[in-house]
């Protein structure tokens, strides 16, 4: 029987050295007695051995090292023996480590989880107090903490990385960690020190009390993550009983209170905000009528959009055509009719959408009796933006369906790559814009096969657009 004495500080390296030696000597698990810290050194089988660094060349799977270097910090006295016994099994069956159903491994994994949780809670619940100046003009802080496992040593590097520019001490009954002038050192544990009062704790308590929402009390959710055993060292925890006790009454009071009259300044501030509001429908119509008087040759009247003022979808075409100009309504010509037809097939309710054009006036060239459509140029698109934006602000649609290059230019600022961009949604300050072609494009295709194909694609686009507004 061998007895191995492991120290309280540096436990992991000591266990590793011991295990290497034992493994090299082929010692079975039942022939080792593990002792830890200040356990009584005398026993029936003679003197204990403190492990020395072993030169034995031992290879184990990396996963095991990761596991063992956490489990050694557990408070269970059996941890060293369990690890060694499992190590012997792993040496024989390396694949054992990936067997999540193995009982021995499950036990060790559970211990690892306990240690990790304890270390995590230590990172969370250590509360420093200001203790004045430390080494070399650095500020110094100290904390008292009571961990459930031996987690001070493995967790100290975290605090060193986090609080690199200050000195700190974390005192615990188990091991005390110090960080001075950039160096971590460990000493035996100590009784609770008397730390000076820290004014920041009152501020922290104020924050804790006020961030709590009394209308949604979930005490169990709190205690499962912040168990009561930690409360005695948390300055904020002293407020918890009072917060829980008063919550019900505070929530009831909020519900019972009648909505109060707004303060006087509210009206003034809101008034200022509303002054910057867009024009109203009436103003827009009046202005359209004004702008339609005394038109120069080659330009039609202003044709505003049509549809519910709160429509969720806004359809933007190019510009009014001959029919539209005569009737003063958008989308009534051949392209509009084609749109209605395909939209109907795509399940898009044209009546529920607001339909309008990027440019508001019919631009034409006379040829005999006929008025021939002329595409708008950049200046005209830019100029007509004011109308479109006014409509957008009034309707505030969830989705804008942009048909053709003119609408695309007006809504997104660039017209290139229409066919590449079609079928996708682009974010703009006006809202999401769904890009597709103009129905008149379909009408102009000479080849009937291609026309059918393209109409099908157009229909798919409309179906996709409909999907976006659910």
């Amino acid at each position: 029987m061998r007895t191995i004495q492991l120290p309280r500080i540096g436990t992991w390296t000591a266990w590793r050295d011991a295990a290497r030696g034992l493994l090299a000597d082929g010692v079975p698990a039942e022939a080792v007695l593990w002792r830890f810290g200040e356990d009584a050194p005398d026993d029936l089988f003679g003197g204990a051995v403190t492990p020395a660094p072993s030169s034995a060349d031992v290879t184990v799977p990396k996963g095991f090292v990761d596991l063992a270097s956490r489990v050694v910090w557990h408070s269970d006295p059996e941890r060293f023996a369990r690890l060694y016994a499992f190590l012997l099994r792993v040496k024989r069956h390396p694949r054992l480590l990936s067997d999540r159903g193995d009982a021995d491994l499950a036990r060790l994994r559970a211990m690892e989880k306990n240690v990790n949780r304890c270390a995590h809670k230590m990172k969370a619940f250590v509360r420093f107090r200001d203790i004045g100046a430390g080494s070399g003009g650095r500020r110094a802080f100290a904390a008292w903490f009571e961990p459930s496992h031996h987690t001070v040593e493995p967790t100290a590097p975290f605090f060193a990385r986090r609080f690199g520019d200050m000195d700190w001490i974390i005192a615990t009954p188990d091991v005390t960690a110090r960080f001075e002038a950039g160096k971590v050192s460990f000493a035996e544990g100590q009784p609770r020190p008397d730390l000076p009062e820290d004014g920041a704790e009152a501020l922290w308590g104020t924050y804790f009390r006020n961030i709590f929402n009394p209308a949604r009390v979930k005490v169990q959710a709190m205690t499962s993550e912040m168990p009561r055993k930690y409360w005695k060292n948390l300055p904020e925890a002293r407020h918890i009983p009072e917060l829980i006790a008063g919550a019900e009454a505070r929530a009831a009071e909020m519900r019972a209170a009648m909505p109060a009259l707004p303060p006087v300044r509210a009206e003034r501030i809101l008034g200022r905000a509303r002054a910057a509001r867009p024009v109203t429908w009436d103003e827009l119509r009046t202005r359209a009528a004004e702008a339609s008087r005394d038109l120069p040759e080659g330009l039609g009247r202003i044709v505003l959009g049509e549809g519910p003022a709160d429509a969720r979808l806004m359809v933007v075409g190019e510009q009014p055509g001959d029919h539209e100009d005569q009737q003063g309504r958008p989308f009534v010509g051949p392209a509009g009719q084609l749109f209605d037809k395909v939209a109907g097939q795509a399940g898009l309710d044209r009546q529920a959408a607001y339909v309008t054009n990027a440019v508001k006036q019919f631009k034409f060239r006379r040829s005999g009796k006929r008025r021939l459509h002329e595409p708008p140029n950049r200046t005209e698109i830019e100029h007509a933006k004011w109308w479109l934006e006014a409509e957008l602000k009034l309707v505030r649609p969830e989705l804008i369906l942009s048909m053709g290059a003119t609408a695309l230019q007006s809504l997104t600022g660039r017209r290139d790559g229409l066919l590449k961009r079609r079928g996708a949604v682009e974010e703009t300050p006006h809202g999401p814009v769904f890009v597709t072609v103009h129905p008149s494009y379909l009408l102009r295709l000479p080849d009937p096969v291609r026309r059918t194909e393209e109409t099908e694609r157009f229909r798919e686009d409309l179906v996709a657009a409909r999907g976006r507004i659910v």
Partner: protein
Amino acid sequence: MPLTLQQKLAILSDAARYDASCASSGTTRRDSRKGGLGSTEGSGICHAYAPDGRCISLLKILMTNFCIYDCAYCVNRVSSNTPRARFTPEEVVHLTIEFYRRNYIEGLFLSSGIIRSPDKTMEDMVRIARLLREREGFRGYIHLKTIPDAAPELIEQAGLFADRLSVNIELPTVRSLEAYAPEKDAGTIRAAMAEVKAKRTASKDRTHTGKRPPRFAPAGQSTQMIVGADESTDRTILGQSTQLYGDHGLKRVYYSAFSPIPESSAKLPLIKPPLVREHRLYQADWLLRFYGFGVDEITGSRPDGNLDLEVDPKLAWALAHRDRFPVDVQRAERELLLRVPGFGTKTVKRVLATRRHRTLRYEDLQRMGANLKHARPFIVLRDWRPGALTDSADLRARFAPPPEQLSLF
């Protein structure tokens, strides 16, 4: 009389409590070994929990709760009589650093009411972040709430100092936003998200010299939706989330049960906060992101488009699709295993790793962390068969809470 720091903190943390997000994870790794203060190492830390069950990870405060907007659900709206206060940038920096040094927090979550103009507000917030990073050498976590209408240059700077940027979508539909937050605009909110996404993508490309540009909001962006203030169904809400995850690459969508506020508005009557619904939405959100479910599948089990409040959404789906079960744990593919109630992603990973070597038994699953109370009726193992349990008529009743006798008086 001017307010003390204590009083300001009380007012401005009180005003910030309705923001659900407190995540401090997923950013770049940093530490203070080479100077400065603070570290971020992958997972965040919850430093305390309030009795409302929410974690306290960041110092979550408003820079000011003065606001020129009039959003009905918000305690800080212009028409509310709540006491007002305003921090100076120095005060915010002082609180953050002193709290951080005492290990109370992981960093700062700074939001603000809109004062004067969106640009002015955003400018002050960026200034605070800059002071923390440049003067104090702060390496901890910073989350800035961006103001949707602020100038792009300010957003750009904010993203260079902050780990995470967020802008709240507030309500699930444009319609409700119009009704309850008339000054806010859904288009502007989405455009702000699109902008952050574009900047994040751009910051990942190397320049032609091979240098990396500075990281832009490395922990990504998130948003929050208020649940239960309007009439939206869970299907609408989750559909909206899927779009946000897809279109703007959001890291998280937070759901916040509409909870009574002091100084309520006549437009929005107060209710008891729908906490169970909020919880179910989070569960559904997880199923969407990590378990391969679609919105229609999750919300399809009830005709009204809402989630079942009595059982969790995965169980509800399984109960409605019993023809797919029981699943053979030894053979089923990953996608199917993920759909078994009581199996989490970790359990599935362990099952896949172990079953390569040997046959799984019932007690193995217990050790792998499966919730067998839920899983039992839906799985087959060498030593376990559910028999008629899978199709039994009272299966739902075994999981749902027992019906409550209403009071007779």
